[in-house]
């Protein structure tokens, strides 16, 4: 495992988190954690792939959101137009069979961002989707995408609590969803108006996340890739 201190990565992360590239790094980190999770998908066409379809669905949604987030933050890649992003998200949710969960996550994110009460069960999907486009066009864009990502990972967390989710085949998938939730929490913190500069403990947490250690290597690898991307486009 790479030692982040002796290789200088730790210092580079700290510099980046203390600069105006902080959001870029965190958006890239979320994207890399989503890409990394793809590396542990079961092989397509197998029974294990079908059994993991719901977790795969959440990750595919998250990847589209993370790509949109990094496009918004870095400006170097236009990403999908908002209407296309909505179509991609709803389409993927339907393809992998988690459209109901997506609409619930969407309602939760809208409620969180604009503070209004929204009952997903009593609001038409069309209404929720129109609300999403309005949020994306607002000043709350970054916060909304982050909250939607958070709500989707919350759905994944619900999935993990089911008995069948403890199957050996899903251990790595579940580890990634845990890391994704952590990255989203960092993003939330960074988006707060009075967000403090990155502290040493913040960075420590970023690279030392798993009590069982096995998630640390995944997080460090994603962090190093995110760092390289941000530094390459300085």
């Amino acid at each position, binding site marked *: *495992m*790479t030692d982040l201190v002796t290789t200088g990565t730790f210092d580079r992360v700290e510099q980046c988190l203390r600069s105006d590239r902080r959001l870029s790094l965190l958006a890239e980190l979320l994207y890399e954690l989503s*890409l*990394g999770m*793809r*590396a*542990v*998908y079961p092989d*397509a*066409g197998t029974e294990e792939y079908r059994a993991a379809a719901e977790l795969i669905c959440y990750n595919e949604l998250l990847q589209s959101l993370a*790509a949109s987030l990094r*496009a918004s933050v870095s400006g*170097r*890649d236009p990403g999908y137009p908002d209407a*296309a992003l909505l*179509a*991609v998200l*709803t*389409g*993927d949710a339907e*393809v*992998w069979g988690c459209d109901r969960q997506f609409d619930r996550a969407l309602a939760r994110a809208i409620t969180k961002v604009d503070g209004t009460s929204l009952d997903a069960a009593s609001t038409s999907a069309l209404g929720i989707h129109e609300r999403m486009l309005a949020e994306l066009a607002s000043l709350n864009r970054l916060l909304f995408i982050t909250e939607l990502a958070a709500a989707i990972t919350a759905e994944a967390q619900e999935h993990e609590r089911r008995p069948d989710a*403890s*199957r*050996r085949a899903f*251990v*790595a998938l579940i*580890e990634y969803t845990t890391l994704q939730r952590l990255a989203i929490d960092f993003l939330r913190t960074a988006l707060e108006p009075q967000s403090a500069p990155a502290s040493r403990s913040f960075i420590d947490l970023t690279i030392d996340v798993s009590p069982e250690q*096995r998630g640390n*290597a*995944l997080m*460090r*690898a*994603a962090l*190093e*890739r995110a760092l*390289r991307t941000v530094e390459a486009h300085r």
Partner: protein
Amino acid sequence: MADVTSDDRGERPALTLLHDEQTIRRRVSYAYWEHRSTDDIVASLRPDAASPLTVKPNGTVMQGNTRILVLRQRGLDVDSLPRVIYESYSTEDWSD
């Protein structure tokens, strides 16, 4: 540890899609890329693009699945396209 490097070596396993073709064809992104020119799609997969063709050492496509499927259906030799290699951390010995 995981790493990403541009592939300039000779050994190139054939590309394997992450999802089955039927799943990819049902995606909205498939309709989007199906209407783009071959040149546009190939350009979007270059190693210096925002979302380059990214592949595990065994040929599994990590990024670019939809675009590769569209190009393959157009008869392009997708296995010869430049690729970014994604070295993933092994989780095979993980247990509950």
